[in-house]
């Protein structure tokens, strides 16, 4: 999540937004981008560095040039985060459901306080049968 916040911050600058929109047409080298923007080539390089660090663009070497492209891993990163997130969420849900089985029927719309079950261990499952 932090990476994506950085990405949003990186995109808060107009020249960087313009660079990203140009890269949306396809990969490009620094010189090509600089020719299409009202800023110097060193300035474009600087902006690309920020975008690269934020995970928005990715560079690859093609011969002696560096080609910049939008980073498809932006999606992969989001997917990986959500995968971990739901794994944890469903585990939490299962733990909660297990604890809630001792709750009297009809109480499932609120936080379920554990019901005293006596000294002999967990209470039998009490299910609503409606």
């Amino acid at each position: 999540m932090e990476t994506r916040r950085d990405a949003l911050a990186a995109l808060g600058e107009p020249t960087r937004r313009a660079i990203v929109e140009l890269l949306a047409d396809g990969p490009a080298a620094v010189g090509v981008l600089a020719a299409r923007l009202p800023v110097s080539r060193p300035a474009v390089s600087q902006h690309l560095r920020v975008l690269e660090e934020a995970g928005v663009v990715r560079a690859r070497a093609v011969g002696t040039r560096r080609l910049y492209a939008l980073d498809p891993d932006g999606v992969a990163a989001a997917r990986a985060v959500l995968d971990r997130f739901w794994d944890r969420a469903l585990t939490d849900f299962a733990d909660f459901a297990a604890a809630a089985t001792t709750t009297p029927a009809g109480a499932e719309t609120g936080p379920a306080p554990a019901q005293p079950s006596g000294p002999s261990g967990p209470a039998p499952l009490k299910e609503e049968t409606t």
Partner: protein
Amino acid sequence: MTVRPVQRQVTVEVTQERAFALFTGAMGSWWNPGHHVGERPFADVVVEPREGGRWFEVDEGGVESPWGSVLVWDPPHRLLLAWQLDAGWAHDPHHTTEVEVRFVADGPARTRVELEHRGLERYGADADEVAAQLGADGGWAGLLRRFAEELQVPA
């Protein structure tokens, strides 16, 4: 471009009806409190029990922060939610992905909860896809503009 959906499942030792009721009616009790959208931790997470219902968190002061909405409400079998949180865990009504939850009876008091979070391609953009969408306001360019506008609006 299609991104493989996130698919997760868990089995709980309760009936289908109870699993559905706990999942939807007590979300604030099992949802990780670290994952809140509002400024302050939530006091509860509410899924309004009807199609078109809201899905939101509410803090101790009663301040609500939207997460999305209920697209399909089909107890005790199926729930389809519109997840309108972007990758920065902020609400954006223009950024909808879908969370489908199916409750499958696996015995008299055992339910398999199958969750699929799909439409994840909206979290990014493949270069080809983007090129095709550039003209559309709903495309990447429009998205970036909205991101940027959000950043410039004082909180």
